[in-house]
């Protein structure tokens, strides 16, 4: 097992890895936070949409010969569009009811999507190649850092900050935030609120799909890749504060770091630490670290 007094070099290596994982958590929880924070929908389908993103990238490559970089752009659009259809056809009917119905619906959808993919593709996983430009890595002295993983951190930070900026600092974002607080009033101002909601849901889903494409080269593309991840991502969003974009981003990265540390000192707990933190946060500050009580 693990030795105490891990040499600092090894520690840095683990922290860096933790940061990389945190990027995924941040990206995924960002999508969830957008959807919950702005729309009050608990999107249990998020994990399945992440998986669809990875599969879409795979299809693009194997059936159409379209490579990774194009996939990064196309996949979010495709999966986001599918998300918007789901929202229009099904979720929109539930807005008048308790939020828990939204949770149950998306839970059911997740079961369907995952089940269908699994029937078709089994569970061993499908290989997706690392893009040429990003293969190989750099020896940083304390560890060998694959280029692709460095790219993950970068891309994730950029996307997260861009999203945060759009929502918190631009006019579009302010319309959106207003629409969730008081849809009738905003609609009275002539803004098409239902359409904004649909687009926002689509955007959240697109973020999940984007994360899926990023994951495809390093984690096996398999139908269940989102299933257990979704619960962790929920925990991140809850800790960060269910309405807070910045909260999710920060918590995502922070969690990655904490998990990385746990893996060094007590790896068996690395799965549980997030839930322990979540339970504690919920006890003390149920709105989450950065959230505001709704």
């Amino acid at each position: 097992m693990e030795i105490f007094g891990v040499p600092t070099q090894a520690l840095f290596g683990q922290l860096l890895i933790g940061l990389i994982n945190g990027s995924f958590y941040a990206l995924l929880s960002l999508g969830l936070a957008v959807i919950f924070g702005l729309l009050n929908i608990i999107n249990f389908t998020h994990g399945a949409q992440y998986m669809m993103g990875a599969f879409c990238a795979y299809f693009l490559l194997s059936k159409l010969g379209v490579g990774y970089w194009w996939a990064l752009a196309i996949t979010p659009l495709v999966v986001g569009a599918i998300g918007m259809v789901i929202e229009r056809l099904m979720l929109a009917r539930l807005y008048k009811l308790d939020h828990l119905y939204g949770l149950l619906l998306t839970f059911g959808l997740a079961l369907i999507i995952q089940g269908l993919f699994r029937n078709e593709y089994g569970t061993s996983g499908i290989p997706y190649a690392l893009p040429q430009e990003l293969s190989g890595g750099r020896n940083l002295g304390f560890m060998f850092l694959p280029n692709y993983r460095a790219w993950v951190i970068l891309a994730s930070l950029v996307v997260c900050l861009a999203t945060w900026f759009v929502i918190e600092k631009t006019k579009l974002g302010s319309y959106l935030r207003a629409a969730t607080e008081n849809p009738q009033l905003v609609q009275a101002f002539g803004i098409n609120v239902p359409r904004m909601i649909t687009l926002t849901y689509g955007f959240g889903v697109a973020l999940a799909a984007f994360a899926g494409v990023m994951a495809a080269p390093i984690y096996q593309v398999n139908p269940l890749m989102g299933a257990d991840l979704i619960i962790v991502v929920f925990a991140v969003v809850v800790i960060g504060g269910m309405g807070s974009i910045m909260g999710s981003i920060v918590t995502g990265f922070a969690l990655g770091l904490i998990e990385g540390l746990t893996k060094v000192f007590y790896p068996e707990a690395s799965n549980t630490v997030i839930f322990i933190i979540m339970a504690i946060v919920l006890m003390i500050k149920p709105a989450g670290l950065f959230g505001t009580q709704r």
Partner: protein
Amino acid sequence: MFPSRSIFAAASLAFAASGAQAQISDGVVKIGVLTDMSSLYADITGPGSTVAARMAIADFPAKGVKVELLSADHLNKPDVGSSIARQWYDVDKVDVIVDVPTSSIALAINQITREKGKAFLVSGAATSDLTGKACSPNTIHWTYDTWMLANGTGNAIVKTGGDSWYFITADYAFGLALERDTEAVVLKNGGKVLGKVRHPLNAQDFSSFLLQAQASKAKIIGLANAGGDTTNSIKQAAEFGIVKGGQSLAGMLVFLSDIHGLGLDKAQGLIFTETFYWDLNDQTRAFAKRFAAANGGKYPTMVQAGVYSAITHYLKAVTALKGDDGTKVIAKMKELPTDDPLFGKGTVRADGRKLHPAYLVEVKKPSESKGPYDYYKIRATIPADQAFRPMSEGGCSLVK
């Protein structure tokens, strides 16, 4: 009201009644293939096992025995599996259950089969307890087990120079058992274990564990895990340049379908043990071709081959015995030597362990492979009498 199931009447056989039918319960030998059709092990066993079973029944020379095949998906859940088994035995009058991946389910069915005096031929599950403390006069453990994996891989690797190990272990009973057994073998052969790290089951990301393994500079990184954990570890190891950096990966439980899912560029150089490979000889190749044609182009894994072999021998015993009483058939199967095109000649021991040779294989580089599923180089052959745990060490109560 009872659930319909897929019944495939055997391709063979005339109904020539007479004495041959007299002691066969209900005049029909019913074989149930219980496997995982939809989750973790679907590609390793799953529908392919049913295909193998059908082929075995079809290939069995007609001798006046009517055979029926049922199959079901245990969804990788012990309660679903044991429900189906009970129902099959009580209501559908199934005589023998075959395959059953997932050790916990196999152990449960082992118990139920014993209570009801039927027969159980395990191909998919790994736990060596089936021929150890849980051994039963109604069960035969076919294809492989944890001891053989640990011993085959561990022994052979240490002997060929891999004498320093680092383990990446899935933190659950099966993974820990694999690690323990392999470590014992490594140490016995004069090797060293430089360290181990436990990861939670179904971890997606192995980078931090691989980093530690890399830092240890052990020659061999032993992956004491299975399924998605193994394939993920391997894929990410490739990313971190572990094999290029001179270390080798030893998979403790890897199947042909896993390699297929990974692709050779990620899996190349991986070393592990199996008891069947389709490209061993002309007979296995012929089988594989027929199998692939019936199984959507996928080649047989050792578990699926084991199903074929087990059913072949079972039917042989039933014919010789002219009856299908579970306990008696199993006893007969231990009496008769086995011989089939896939595993060659072998025997079944008193503790229910089927013996056949094991092969240490290494995954080819992409340049060395001439076609799909051409993945392995055979590094060594472990003779049948050394591949499996000696009967005296198992703690089986059937062995005096």
